[in-house]
């Protein structure tokens, strides 16, 4: 079965991204297809490579990046939400005159249409948030 996952909260503050990750991993392990993981609202903050969590805690961003690399997972960050919150890739940096980027490996920035398309193309949309 084909799933699209929506994540509405950033790392560490709310459990939403943990639940989404563990659900996504379990779905992949069961042989399902994850059509897309869409990061919306504060969820875009999951896509920064600049985090340095404590050694004895999980690394939420890295976990997503690694899962993406392993399963060719499409991790999409909403561009409008990202602009409000400061998640930037090379293209965004150039367009908006930013002097740095912070996007993490495996994530890409795109429009809200990607969420809608995910909902259309997938059998299920599962939303994780606050």
């Amino acid at each position, binding site marked *: 079965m084909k799933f699209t996952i929506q994540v*509405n909260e950033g790392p560490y503050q709310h459990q939403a991204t943990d639940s989404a990750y563990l659900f996504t991993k379990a779905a992949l392990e069961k042989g399902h297809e994850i059509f897309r993981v869409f990061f919306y609202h504060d969820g875009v903050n999951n896509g920064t490579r600049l985090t340095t969590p404590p050694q004895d805690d999980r690394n939420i961003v890295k976990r997503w990046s690694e899962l993406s690399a392993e399963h060719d997972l499409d991790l999409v960050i909403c561009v409008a939400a990202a602009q409000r919150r400061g998640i930037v890739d090379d293209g965004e940096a150039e367009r908006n005159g930013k002097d740095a980027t912070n996007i993490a490996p495996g994530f890409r920035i795109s*429009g809200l249409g990607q969420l809608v398309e995910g*909902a259309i193309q997938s059998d299920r*949309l599962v939303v994780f*948030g606050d």
Partner: protein
Amino acid sequence: MSEIKKFMYVNRRAPYGTIYAWESLEVVLIGAAFEQDVSMAFIDDGVYQLTKGQDTTGLEMKNFSPTYSALGDYEVTKIYIEKESLEERGLTLEDLQHLTWEDEDEDWAEKDSIKLVSRAEMAQVFADQDVFFNF
């Protein structure tokens, strides 16, 4: 391509205190281009999103409430408002914006978008949907 799906946007949050109401509206507007069968439900504090007379000057925030009146132009014409949620908050439909759409099959006659339903009726509306966008 998949067939047309019934999309339900469920709005349960007040505006301005959090951004969910606004960012939900943005999905609806973008999603309209995908020609699915779209409905919106306003329940719990979500009914506050549609109140008339919002003036955000003092908060220095963008007032996005005028955008709801554009929903009809985007062919979002099924807007369910829950009676119990209104009543609990001391509101009536008079306190909310009057949202309409123009029916091109009937010489662009202006029609009401808002459907006032009870909680029991809303449960039936929900039961008839395919995909839920919860904010």
